[in-house]
């Protein structure tokens, strides 16, 4: 009974639904404020993301004639749930995940993919030609960041395994957290720094932040994937977008900045939040303020050459035992 209660708390409050949403809104709001400040604007209020979400909830939903209703409603929900689920598997606090041992890095990689796929299929189900172009671009963006992401995952796993006692879990997040708790954050390992940089590049593309938001170009292809979305499903997509910012930064913390623990949950959470804020600023706000939107093939070429190259260098270094 208490187990069930705890599980419910994990799922609904911390680190599940509520915490994710709060963090997502916080990060999204701060990101927008920072971008505004870098352009010498005032920027929206901190809770703007929350207002957007609520507003969209209150709007009418129009399903276009060629749309498929079940998928129109179901895809955003499934994507959001998949995203929330990731948070339960991340050993963010105290090096412990809410549900440790039930998922590893590959599962998280695929759940992230699932989130994007839900968006793509949802867009596809609207039948809009703009959504068609948007989902095509989203998919190319996904192919782009997947290669460096995979290389980073392999690098980290290998680095942990090389030092560890040959644990049978090869992609285990728990092993990574434990290793960092014992040996300090992985980012202090110099051979992993290129991989960390590559991961920093992966974050904005995975989230779909500005210079890499090829799939949602507002004026170019009319919001692309979201062209036909309105009302609560759109609200869920916006929320998913915000929560993804938190999940991706937290994933970076788990992979490269883990092992910093004070033993108190509250303090650890605060440290995590600080890390997430810094990462959000570095990976999302700065490029947003500085870069113009990439072209689709530029994204692809950039990720498969520069970013994947960085990750590959790291992988080879780790492989050679540095």
């Amino acid at each position, binding site marked *: 009974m208490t187990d069930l209660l705890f599980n419910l708390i994990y799922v609904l409050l911390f680190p599940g639904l509520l915490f994710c949403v709060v963090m997502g809104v916080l990060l999204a709001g701060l990101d927008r404020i*920072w971008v*505004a*400040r*870098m*352009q*010498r*604007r*005032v*920027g929206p209020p901190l809770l703007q993301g929350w207002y957007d979400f609520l507003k969209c909830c209150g709007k009418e939903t129009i399903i276009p004639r060629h749309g498929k209703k079940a998928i129109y409603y179901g895809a955003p929900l499934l994507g959001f749930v998949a995203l929330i689920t990731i948070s339960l598997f991340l050993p963010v606090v105290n090096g412990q995940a809410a549900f440790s041992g039930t998922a590893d890095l590959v599962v998280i990689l695929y759940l992230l993919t699932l989130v994007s796929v839900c968006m793509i299929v949802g867009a596809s189900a609207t039948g809009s030609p703009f959504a068609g172009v948007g989902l095509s671009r989203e998919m190319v963006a996904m192919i782009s960041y997947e290669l460096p992401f995979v290389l980073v995952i392999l690098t980290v796993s290998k680095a942990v395994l090389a030092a560890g006692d040959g644990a049978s879990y090869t992609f285990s997040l728990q092993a990574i957290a434990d290793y960092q708790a014992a040996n300090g954050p992985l980012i202090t390992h110099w051979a992993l720094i290129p991989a960390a940089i590559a991961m920093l590049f992966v974050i904005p593309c995975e989230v779909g932040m500005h210079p890499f938001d090829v799939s949602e170009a507002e004026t170019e292809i009319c919001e692309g994937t979201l062209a036909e979305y309105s009302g609560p499903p759109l609200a869920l997509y916006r929320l998913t977008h915000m929560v993804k910012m938190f999940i991706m930064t937290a994933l970076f913390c788990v992979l490269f900045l883990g092992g910093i623990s004070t033993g108190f949950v509250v303090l650890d959470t605060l440290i995590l939040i600080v890390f997430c804020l810094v990462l959000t600023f570095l990976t999302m706000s*700065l490029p947003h*303020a*500085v*870069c113009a939107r990439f072209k689709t093939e530029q994204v692809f070429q950039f990720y498969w050459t520069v970013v994947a190259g960085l990750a590959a260098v790291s992988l080879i270094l780790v492989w050679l035992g540095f």
Partner: protein
Amino acid sequence: MLPYLTKALTNLVKKPVTEKFPAGDPPKAAEGYRGRIQYDPEKCINCGMCMRVCAPQCMHRDIEKLENGDQKITFTFDLTSCTFCSMCADFCARHAITLSDDYMIVGTQPEDFLVTGTFVKKAPPPKPKFTPEQIAAMKAKAEAAKAAKAAAGGAAPKPKLTPEEIAERKAKAEAAKAAKAAAAQQGEA
């Protein structure tokens, strides 16, 4: 990329340049801004020039005949039709129309965009009647004046200015110019 980056980072610590506007009073418009039309019916003489020069035909004139023969004239300026070109103001002989610097032309009803003014144009007084003798007298008077003019014809040439006088006038003009420049300099300082 790098210059943008440094600029962005330095901007982060600077104060935003955003106006406070919706919170406070609207800022003053620039000098010479052509905003909401102001119409002074007291000055208007109903010459109709403004209506002739208005490209989008934004004025509307209602003429209502009163019982005593007076005309009640209502000018309506539809600001949603106006291009704020200021032609009407320029052509208004009596300066009855001016364009103010009020740019806050926002409203939900059509009435919010109308500028109206009404004045009553008095009917002209009835014409005096002259007797034939009076007319004859007037005619004679006019003819006498004509004859006098013919007699004095060409006797009054324009007075020529002496060179001294010309020099004096030139000096005067230059002094005025210098004074003006000095005033301008002072103003700038």
